[in-house]
């Protein structure tokens, strides 16, 4: 056994016996020590004897065991291939299988997927109607033939219904874009102004007619319903033109939607103005109240309270509408704008006797 002072040499003795693991400096140091220390020399010899003993008794696989293992593996591989073609076919589609060997491409693909989801998901989530089938009348807003510019411009056609002969292939506003709206002078037969819509589809299309034409109306409604896809100027023009048909239920609903959801205060204000003079339906009244409470822009709230006051003054609002009265009382007390607080009080007075509240 080595001396207690030689304990520190034990790891080096072990490595020396194991062979080829000592650095040159360590080897030289150990050799020098062994030359002076018979105890450690004996210890090294015993270490080597131990390894020799273990090597003598080290199990070697015999041929029968190896043959049996090979036969078993062949059977297992056969079973793997029989049941594995489906797994391999679908396994290759699993992300882990094609992502891990190609990190750079994988990162690029993941970025692309993330970007696509980031762009498309908010759009789809905000407008679930976009998920409807392409035949959805809300989305199919215009029908034009875009193969020939002469045909595309119905003003050049002798057909009395300028859009009828264009109704060949539908354009989906989800893919077509309204590049611009031009308002032309009335042709005299109809008081309504003529409208020219420049649509950006796979091929540019120009659509013209009066707002009374259902195709034109549908395109304009599509602009309001998919407002986030169009610039504020186009939305303002659409609102302005649709005002002429504000008693149409579809138009009214689209204007109310614009008041509630358009990002641009000028467009919301314009839509509120376009609702002025409509039939006092519940949807309009609720939209006015909603704008009065929720809109951040004081100009929009002022327009909303003005219209409510006009409705009340004309007796077109029921004095029994509890919700309306509570909203007005809330605005009378809490709205930061003095004019709105005063006007809210005025509407309350006009709705009925003071003691009622």
């Amino acid at each position, binding site marked *: 056994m080595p001396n207690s002072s030689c304990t520190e040499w*034990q*790891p080096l003795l*072990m*490595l020396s016996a*194991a062979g*080829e*693991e000592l650095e040159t400096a360590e080897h030289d140091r150990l050799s020098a020590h062994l030359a002076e220390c018979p105890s450690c020399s004996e210890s090294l010899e*015993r*270490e080597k*004897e*131990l*390894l020799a*003993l*273990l*090597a003598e*008794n*080290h*199990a*070697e*696989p*015999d041929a*029968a*065991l*190896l043959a*049996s*293992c*090979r036969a*078993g*593996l*062949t059977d*297992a*591989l056969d079973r*793997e*291939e029989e049941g594995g073609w489906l797994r391999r076919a679908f396994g290759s589609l699993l992300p882990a*299988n094609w992502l*891990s*060997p190609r990190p750079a491409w994988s990162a690029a693909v993941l970025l692309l997927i993330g970007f696509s989801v980031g762009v498309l998901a908010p759009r789809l989530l905000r407008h679930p109607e976009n998920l409807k089938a392409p035949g959805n009348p809300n989305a199919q807003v215009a029908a034009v033939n875009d193969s020939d510019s002469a045909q595309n411009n119905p003003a050049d056609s002798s057909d009395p219904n300028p859009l009828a002969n264009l109704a060949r292939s539908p354009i989906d506003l989800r893919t077509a874009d309204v590049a611009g709206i031009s308002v032309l002078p009335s042709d005299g037969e109809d008081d309504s102004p003529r409208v020219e819509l420049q649509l950006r589809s796979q091929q540019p299309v120009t659509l013209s007619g009066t707002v009374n034409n259902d195709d034109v109306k549908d395109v304009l409604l599509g602009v309001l319903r998919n407002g986030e896809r169009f610039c504020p100027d186009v939305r303002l023009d659409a609102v302005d033109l649709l005002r002429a048909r504000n008693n149409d239920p579809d138009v009214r609903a689209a204007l109310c939607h614009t008041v509630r959801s358009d990002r641009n205060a000028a467009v919301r204000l314009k839509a509120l103005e376009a609702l002025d003079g409509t039939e006092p339906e519940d949807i309009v009244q609720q939209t006015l109240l909603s704008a009065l409470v929720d809109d951040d822009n004081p100009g929009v709230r002022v327009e909303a309270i003005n219209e409510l006051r006009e409705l009340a003054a004309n007796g077109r609002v029921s004095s029994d509408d509890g919700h309306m009265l509570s909203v007005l009382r809330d605005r009378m007390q809490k709205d930061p704008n003095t004019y709105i607080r005063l006007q809210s009080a005025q509407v309350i007075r006009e709705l009925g006797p003071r003691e009622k509240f």
Partner: protein
Amino acid sequence: MGMSVALDGDARQAAAVKLGEEQALVRKAQAGDRLAFEDLVRRYDRDVLRLALNLVHRPEDARDVYQEGFLRAYRNLHRFRFECSFYTWLYRIVTNVALDHLRRRTSHREEQAPAPKETEGVAQDFFDRQPELRASANPEKSLLGHEVGQQIERAMKRLSPRERVVFEMKHYQGLRLRAIGDLLGTSEETVKNSLFRATRKLRESLDGIR
């Protein structure tokens, strides 16, 4: 000296050719060529079985480790990216399978059950019935060898699975400590400590044999 350099050069060239052949085989196997995979199996399966047998000791367990190791390699061949040699990659798989096996066996306390003796005979494994060629010449030596073998087996059972793997890799597979560390996913220093502990335990257990 000049001859030695020439021989070294030839050896390197031969190793490079062998490596190229092996890589070609791996690529074929990755493309679904079953025969290429079986060729790879033939190259290394004796070493794999020896490793398995000396880690888990029981022939039936070694057969399981052998089969599971090669099946895992077959299933995951498409993930092999030539960042190390196929041999190293395969050894890593087999070592992990053997370690799992040893840990499972330890946790199930299977080793506490007395192993059937050959003389009890009836339920012997096929491989236990095969003739022991090494000890056939001298019955006395055979008996002594058998006793030594049992002592060594008991000593080996005192080692932890990791110590057993490190000892086996170092002394019987001839791997450097750094290579063992790479295989086990640990540092060379940790491997050195495991080897030191394993050697000390074996020395303590087998000190009186010679």
